[in-house]
């Protein structure tokens, strides 16, 4: 049996944490892009589009992320599409994040008084101009806190990717805990690293909020 020093444990967890960061970034960026597209679609499209996007949001909010991962990883393989753990995790997290983000942002846009839309429309601005120049800057300020709150959730949510065999921080922690038989120590290190990832994000959100006020 190999003997892990504290540094070995820490070093291995740090290496695995890179994947947690990578997964989080993909989920942030992919989720934001898809989420924003859905938001625009929802605002500009007719009632049918609105309902379709609503159904999409309900679908992903109403099912556990764990099941989404399983379906993408094993379900797609049943259909003959061989998805790697990395692709499945990226797609699942992107879809999941986009559903939540579009709903969060819709709320922020809805919080902007109707009069702002009407006033900008009366200035003969197109929908795109209204959204970009009048509504978005105001909604952005409202969106910072809930968006960051959700992003912190996403960082922690990447741990679920371990169920499809993806070796990220949580999975690596489990593997090391099992050779060292020191779960308390190993999982404490894991928790510490998640905290080190999430805390600066929350901190930055506070700074950003102050700046936007």
């Amino acid at each position, binding site marked *: *049996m*190999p*003997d*892990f020093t504290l540094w*070995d444990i820490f070093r*291995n967890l740090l*290496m*695995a944490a890179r994947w947690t960061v990578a997964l989080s970034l993909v989920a942030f960026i992919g989720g934001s892009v898809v989420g924003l597209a859905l938001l625009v679609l929802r605002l500009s*499209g*007719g009632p*049918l*589009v609105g309902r*379709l996007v609503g159904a999409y949001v309900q679908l992903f909010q109403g099912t556990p992320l764990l099941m989404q991962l399983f379906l993408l990883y*094993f379900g797609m*393989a*049943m*259909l*003959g*599409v*061989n998805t790697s753990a990395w692709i499945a995790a990226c797609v699942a997290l992107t879809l999941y994040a986009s559903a939540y983000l579009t709903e969060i942002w819709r709320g922020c846009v809805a919080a902007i008084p109707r009069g702002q839309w009407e006033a900008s429309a009366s200035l003969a601005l197109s929908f795109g101009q209204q959204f970009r120049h009048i509504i978005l800057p105001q909604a952005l300020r409202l969106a910072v806190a809930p968006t960051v709150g959700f992003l912190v959730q996403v960082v922690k949510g990447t741990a679920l990717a371990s*169920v*499809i*065999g993806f*070796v990220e921080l949580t999975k*690596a922690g*489990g*593997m*090391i*805990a*099992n*050779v*060292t*038989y*020191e*779960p*308390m120590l190993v999982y404490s290190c894991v928790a510490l690293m998640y905290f080190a990832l999430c805390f600066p994000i929350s901190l930055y959100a506070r700074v950003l909020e102050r700046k936007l006020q």
Partner: protein
Amino acid sequence: MRLSKRGLLFALGLAPALLAFGGAQAQDALSGILKAKTVRIGIPTDYPPYGFVGIDLQPMGLDVDVANLIGAKLGTKVELVPVVSANRIPYLQTQKIDLIVSTLGKNEERTKIIDFSHAYAPFYQGVFALKATSIKSFDDLAGKSVAVTRGAMEDEMLAKVAPPTAMIQRFEDQSATTAAFAAGQTQVIATSVSNIGALSRKSPNLGVDYKLLLRDSPCFVGIAKGEEALREKVNAIILAAKADGTLEALSQKWLKRGTGDLPL
């Protein structure tokens, strides 16, 4: 509006196309492996000494050695895919891997859905608890909390022999099961002898005692149903390794005991 309708039609059209693709993919597993020059083998990373990670997080252990042996004899590269008890069979069924070399025991339910090679290593499962805990028979498990890994052989065996009042707590992988017992979350653990051996070496103060033999169920290589060519090839490799003493040496190296009588 028009865009979304088209999207919907696209999605509707895509589903049968995907299904058709799935059907067309069927190919003999052995020739697929030889063509790709890579065999993908599911191995445990949470089950010392069969499969666990070294200091560089690379997998090692008896199953890993057997997996590499099979790859070498097939003349292909080996892609080691970490699996756990609960997901190894889905991995095989969905062609994420070609073979399972992961402390896989053979039972009736499993033979219905996958095929097995000859056995390659022994595997003893037992019920363990602290010295102070008195357990003489399975009936003594009544009212006690028992940690076991979901989907592992022990889980199934335990469900058959334990009294209904035993509180069986299932964990997702061996590391969680072992950790739960070691932390005192459960009074009893059902696992392999070798896992407890490693635990006792690491924490001698815990005072774990062997209580009951659950089952002596050797490890087999799991192969997707109906892949006869691959199965025969793997069987030939195992028989050769048995004949030239490789399996015995591996068993001595990792389990500190001989293979005993391995069933075909």
